[in-house]
């Protein structure tokens, strides 16, 4: 499938870098006329992926940031439900703790599933720390909101109404949504994440595929193992259908053109500069265990694991120096396959490596960074016509079953009771 944030690229890069954060850039920099052009362009791209034969288009949601204008992802999903014919509409994910009314969300999603003819794949996220601030959703109850809203939505979709819901955080006298998803018992659910162990285990317990969002291969494999162990505790063998991966990839007619696109991925510091630590980790957002882990890294508690921005960036004062530090990291990001660039011919061996290591049943291409519309469309066309068919062949050859071929959680455990590993540390070692 294919994914892009719906970035607003007309903010000067220095405005982001000087704040060390996309979140918090004042919206006086936003021009709705320019935003409207971009939003429609992003929708057109997704419609084009449908024509190109992609299996899915992936949407996400962020608030209060030029990093992504998709503040109400379900609106975009509703447009795509009608304007596309074949692609799955994959929402990774709805930040359910920030939605004050989960029942309304259940209704929105049911309508999207109906309009699309049963092509919706909803997913849930806790939402980044900054999303809690943007929605004034109490971060200290984030996990509790998440769990209860999830249970309520699933109940609304599957339990005959009307019924009553008296939870800790949500209270309804009359749960009886008239619109219900077309897919039964409910649409398939996938969960994206940035390798939070709590989420990985929760996914395994619910048999939900876990989609790692462009995380480093080593730690990602560790999460696969954690999922697989937890899945075995719940009595099943995890397979490729339980795992997904989001891969930043930039394809063009020449290496140079592809590189120009790839470099743009680091615009403003990229994903690693999403928000400042105080906004990424509002009070109580992290579990006690996660806080303990962070305490040992407290000097730079940005994203877990290695980021695209060097650790010392936060101490730099001069914008030019920050910019250099960001873009100097480009080559090493390519080397570790966090970013893949090239022509269709040259990206395939690199993609094969990622697929051999992680063995995911769900695979998404991610294109981002400011770039002319024509270049983005070229990238999409080459991905759709040349890269994707070859990736499908590699998938077949490696036996990477997707969740629509093998139902996640349906594989029995080996007779030993010990689960087989899904990813390949040997392939990682060989890199």
């Amino acid at each position: 499938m294919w994914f892009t944030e719906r970035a607003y690229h007309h903010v000067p890069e220095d405005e982001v870098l000087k704040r060390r954060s996309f979140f918090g850039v004042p919206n006086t920099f936003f021009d709705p006329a320019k935003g409207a052009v971009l939003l429609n362009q992003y929708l057109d791209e997704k419609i084009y992926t449908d024509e190109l034969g992609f299996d899915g288009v992936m949407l996400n949601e962020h608030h209060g940031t030029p990093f992504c204008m998709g503040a109400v992802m379900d609106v975009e999903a509703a447009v795509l439900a009608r304007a596309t014919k074949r692609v799955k509409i994959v929402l990774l994910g709805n930040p359910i703790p920030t939605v004050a009314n989960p029942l309304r969300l259940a209704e929105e999603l049911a309508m999207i599933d109906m309009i699309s003819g049963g092509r919706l794949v909803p997913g849930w996220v806790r939402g980044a720390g900054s999303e809690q601030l943007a929605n004034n959703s109490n971060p200290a109850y984030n996990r509790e909101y998440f769990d209860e809203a999830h249970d309520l939505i699933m109940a609304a979709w599957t339990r005959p109404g009307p019924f009553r819901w008296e939870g800790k955080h949500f209270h309804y006298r009359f749960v009886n949504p008239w619109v219900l998803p077309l897919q039964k018992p409910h649409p398939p659910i996938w969960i994206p994440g940035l390798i939070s162990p709590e989420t990985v285990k929760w996914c395994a317990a619910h048999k939900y595929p876990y989609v790692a969002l462009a995380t480093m291969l080593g730690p990602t494999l560790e999460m696969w193992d954690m999922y697989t162990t937890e899945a075995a505790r719940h009595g099943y063998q995890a397979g490729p259908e339980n795992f997904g991966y989001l891969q930043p990839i930039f394809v063009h007619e020449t290496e140079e053109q592809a590189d120009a696109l790839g470099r743009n991925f680091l615009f403003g510091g990229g994903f690693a500069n999403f928000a400042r630590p105080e906004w990424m980790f509002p009070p109580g957002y992290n579990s006690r265990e996660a806080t303990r882990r962070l305490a040992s890294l407290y000097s730079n508690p940005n994203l877990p694991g290695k980021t695209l921005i060097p650790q010392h960036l936060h101490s730099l004062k001069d914008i030019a120096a920050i910019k250099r530090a960001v873009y100097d990291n480009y080559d090493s990001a390519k080397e570790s396959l966090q970013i893949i660039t090239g022509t269709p011919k040259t990206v395939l061996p690199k993609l094969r490596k990622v697929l051999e290591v992680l063995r995911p049943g769900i695979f998404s291409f991610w294109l981002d960074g400011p770039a002319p519309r024509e270049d983005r469309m070229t990238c999409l066309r080459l991905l759709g016509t040349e890269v994707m068919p070859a990736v499908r062949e590699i998938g077949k050859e490696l036996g990477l079953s997707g969740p629509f071929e093998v139902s996640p959680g349906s594989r029995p455990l080996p007779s030993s009771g010990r689960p087989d590993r899904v990813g390949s540390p040997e392939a990682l070692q060989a890199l």
Partner: protein
Amino acid sequence: MAEKGFTEEKVRVGDTDLQVLKLGTGKPLLVMHGEMGFSGLLKWHTALAAKRTLHIPLHPGFGKTPQASWIMNVRDLGAFYARYIREQKLTPVDVIGFSLGGWLAAEMATANSGQFNKMVLVGAAGLRPPTGEIMDMFTRTARNFLNENVVDYQNTPEFSSLFGGEQTPAQYEEWEEARAETARIAWAPYMFTQSMEHLLANVAGLPTLLVWGKQDPVVPLSVAELYHQRIAGSKLVTFDKCGHMPEIEKSAEFIKEVESFLG
């Protein structure tokens, strides 16, 4: 680990093991700590402990006392403490509350002013400021918030001894616990109860001292003035060149005023 300079005991309150620090001898003084938790022994503790037994409960969820998941706002916490002081036979007790702890004491007084003998509110939150805003601690790191509490964090000796130097992992954890529990009970409306202003009439007759820094950047002086106006007979003492921590920033004057008020 026991808090340096204090004795520490565990008191069962309902389902919760409340950790209470104690210091001194004499008539009890209930001390309600603020939103960043209890940070350590200060001069004013030692001074008041000469004639008083300080009872400093560590609020549930702030680290040492386990979280009580049913406590979801400051009034719930006040009801919890009403049970504690009743069961410990402390009522009517003198109380001093700082910032969030001041709000807590004020809530308890509006519910039942008879449970207190005298009340001291220091930079107390709890009311919507008629002018200005209560500083948002949740969009700042713990360290930055603390530094902004006082007028001059680099030249306030007791501040430096508590919070100065490199932030340690243990501090990070403690402060995150405190911030999390404060968020659980005071996220929205942030740091005030809409109705309390109207209930402060219930506090009439309770001798009340309000202590504020004139430059308090966290809870603006307008809140002190509103408390003063709504609690008949209350006394307002303000210190110049002083922020949100008069007990540290103006330690000697603070001790004098509080001792003189409590008698």
